């Protein structure tokens, strides 16, 4: 039997859920399991109800599931919320004194005096460490790995706190080992292979750094903040400057100023902030300034669901910025794809002097996956600025070339001067009111599309060749759709999927080629209006079937897709 085990760690904000999850994930990754972990949290710092799902397997996994086999409940609410979703059988770890669990045949109740063990270790703040000790005991993980982890990762805590946490973890471990010897969890010892653990925020950040980012500016906004924080944390080491702007308008315009001066740049934001950047993005289009915009979606409109996931901004990024100008839109499906896409994005922004969007979402940003490796040599930083030897004088910033791409210099390079301008302008950047200048300038900008169409990440096909049913994913729906395909293939269904990372310029020819065998095409996306489905139909003239949609702020999972898909068949 393949291993597929799901753990939910639940409680209120401030109870140290993330610490438990991080320790467990790290140790499991080092033990060679494949992991997928997703977060469900509320927009508050204390209280409420939050949980992390950790799914582990002996083969690569790409999504989260709904029925945990093990629940760590740090408060009563956690039991009440998750009880009905638990698998059969399931285990609940909880505090024996304060949390009650209704008896049931399917539940194995692991009641441990977590609070008491914590107090005995010196403080009531170590409940989460006692719980993680209990978890380690049940999963037959090595207590020494846990202790080493606490010693090395808690360096910011006082020696007394570290000791307290270790004591509580040891007590939780021992208590559980002694009292719950009968509980067997069916996860074989995985081979000792050290896997890396990465989330979308880290992969986009490291990709941007590898892509040569020199300046980043942002205004904090969930769920994009993780990228800004990561790059800022590495800024000094990598010769980057990071500035928290007064608003997204400033962030966008700072980045455009830096980019015009020759620095590689990016902004990070979410829908509301992106709306404020609208005019700046139009300036990038007009003045042909390279910029990478990492827009991490959450449900809107307006403030919406701050900490949840959605794919509602596709229409926005397709159209954002008044007037007409070319752009790239990428929507990577996994943290791995996000890494390489981000390097490409930094290169392509400079190569074509256009805005490049990386369209992610909370699910991509916060979900952790295990990978064997990331290869920083696979996609390389490439400099597309004009070399001094090729810099013709007088230099025309907007030289009308065959490719539409003008040689890109920086201010003062080899003593040239030039003006970057937001109006209709002549080749040397000066304001013009001439209709021929206007027409030629527009045509020049749009000639870039010919080159842009040939760039990376055409649609990827996965599943049965010439399948009758073709699912379509874009962005973070990739994982759940891929596992849906695997599940349906096991049932001998004629299915396949097409995943879109590059969304614009839309890969029309490739799409028609890949979709032609499909009798039924089903787009899966996290929005109400089926925005990608509409785009696909518009660009290919192919009729699609009823899409599978979700717009409650939660990510897809296999069960959800199959259930909706089967209903739709009838």
């Amino acid at each position, binding site marked *: 039997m393949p291993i597929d085990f799901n753990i939910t760690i639940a409680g209120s904000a401030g109870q140290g859920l993330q610490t438990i999850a991080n320790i467990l994930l790290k140790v499991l990754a080092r033990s060679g399991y494949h992991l997928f972990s997703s977060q469900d949290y509320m927009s508050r710092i204390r209280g409420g109800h939050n949980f992390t799902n950790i799914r582990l397997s002996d083969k690569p996994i790409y999504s989260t599931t709904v029925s945990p086999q093990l629940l760590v409940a740090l408060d009563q609410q956690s039991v009440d919320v998750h009880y009905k979703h638990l698998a059969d059988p399931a285990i609940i770890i909880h505090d024996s004194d304060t949390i009650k669990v209704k008896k049931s045949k399917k539940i194995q109740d692991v009641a441990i005096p977590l609070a008491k063990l914590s107090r005995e270790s010196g403080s009531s703040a170590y409940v989460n460490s006692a719980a993680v000790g209990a978890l380690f005991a049940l999963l037959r993980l090595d207590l020494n790995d846990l202790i080493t982890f606490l010693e090395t990762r808690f360096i910011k805590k006082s020696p007394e706190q570290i000791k307290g946490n270790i004591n509580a973890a040891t007590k939780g471990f021992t208590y559980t080992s002694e009292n719950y010897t009968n509980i067997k969890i069916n996860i074989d010892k995985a081979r000792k292979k050290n896997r890396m653990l990465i989330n979308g925020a880290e992969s986009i950040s490291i990709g941007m750094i590898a892509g040569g980012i020199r300046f980043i500016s942002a205004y904090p906004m969930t769920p994009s903040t993780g990228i800004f924080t990561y790059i800022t944390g590495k800024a000094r080491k990598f010769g980057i400057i990071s500035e928290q702007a007064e608003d997204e308008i400033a962030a966008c315009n700072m980045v455009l*100023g830096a980019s015009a001066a020759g620095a590689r740049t990016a902004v990070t934001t979410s829908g509301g902030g992106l709306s404020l950047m609208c005019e700046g993005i139009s300036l990038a289009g007009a003045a042909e300034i390279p910029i990478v915009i990492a827009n991490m979606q959450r449900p809107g409109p307006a403030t919406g669901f701050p900490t949840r996931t959605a794919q509602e901004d596709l229409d926005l990024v397709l159209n954002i910025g008044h007037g007409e100008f070319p752009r790239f839109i990428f929507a990577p499906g996994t943290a791995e794809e996000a890494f390489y896409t981000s390097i490409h994005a930094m290169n392509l922004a400079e190569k074509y002097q256009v805005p490049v969007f990386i369209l992610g979402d909370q699910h991509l940003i916060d979900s952790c996956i295990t990978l064997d490796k990331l290869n920083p040599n696979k996609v390389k930083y490439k400099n597309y600025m004009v070399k001094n030897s090729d810099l013709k004088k007088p230099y025309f910033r907007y030289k009308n070339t065959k490719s539409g791409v003008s040689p890109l210099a920086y201010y003062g390079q080899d003593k040239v001067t030039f003006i970057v301008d937001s109006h209709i302008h002549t080749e040397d950047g000066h304001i013009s009111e001439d209709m021929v200048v206007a027409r030629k300038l527009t045509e020049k900008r749009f000639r870039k599309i010919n080159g842009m169409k040939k760039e990376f990440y055409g649609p990827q096909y996965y599943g049965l060749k010439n399948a009758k049913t073709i699912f379509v994913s874009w962005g973070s729906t990739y994982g759940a759709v891929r596992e849906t395909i695997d599940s349906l293939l096991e049932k001998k269904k004629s299915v396949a999927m097409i995943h879109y990372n590059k969304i614009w310029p839309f890969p029309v020819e490739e799409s028609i080629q890949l979709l032609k065998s499909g009798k039924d095409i089903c787009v899966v996306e996290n929005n109400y209006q089926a925005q990608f489905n509409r785009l696909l139909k518009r660009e290919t003239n192919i009729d699609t079937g009823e899409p599978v949609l979700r717009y409650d702020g939660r990510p897809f999972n296999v069960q959800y897709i199959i259930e909706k898909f089967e209903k739709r068949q009838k």
Partner: protein
Amino acid sequence: MTEENIFHFSGERAWCPGCGDYSILSSVEKALVNLRKKPHEVLIVSGIGQAAKLPHYINTNGFDGLHGRALPAAFGAKVANHKLMVLVTSGDGDIYGEGGNHFIHAIRRNIDITLIVHNNQVYGLTKGQASPTSDLGMVTKTQPDGVVTIPFNPLTMAITLDAVFVARSFSKEIEFTSKLIEEGINTPGFSLIDVLQPCVSFNHVNTYKWYSDRVYQLDNSYDPADKSKAYKKSSEWGDKIPIGVIYKNSRRTYLDNFIKPKDLPLIKRKTNIRGIESLINELY
């Protein structure tokens, strides 16, 4: 001007005859000549408005961006290449109205740039509406009962935020203005020079004569280092309007925190692949 004016632009200028913008342009050119700068060493950033056309009319690098957003763009350019001398020339509507928020935070950051505001107390490009600095009672097509909103005082605001160099001038005084611009450029940090300027087409209150009758140059007896006196001086408006350096101060510039003068500019830096490998290794 004894030296050759290498900053002169020979093309057409789309300003009204008699506009104060011409004099401010001359002052900027003079200051740059006196400082012995070369055109490629200078970047002039603007937003939108009549004043914001200035980067098109001078032989330097230019960035003519969005309405109100000159200061963030100038900040970005200076951070990217700290060897560039960065000036911002834009109007009162652009800097104090549309870009008011950026004005506040640019002063707080104290990036080493010089802001020259062409303050004509009216909107020129959109034909005569009130600006944030229009005097109370000024009648326009969009303020038919006269301006009822009290004028924004950029100098007082800048002093409150401890800008390192706060000055006011009058466009007609070309030599005097150019000296203030030079001093602003030579002062490390964010310098503000608010230049009063008539709008011959739309401001029929604050005319050449109106300003000429009122402005007076501050003399040596005035100490711009005294903050409380500077406050008082900055709000002097009406029969007498002071021009000169109103406030001076010194503090670390933004980039002093991140870059040493001899460091490579950001645009010249490279990321090595080893560094990326170390980031990846942290994930195991």
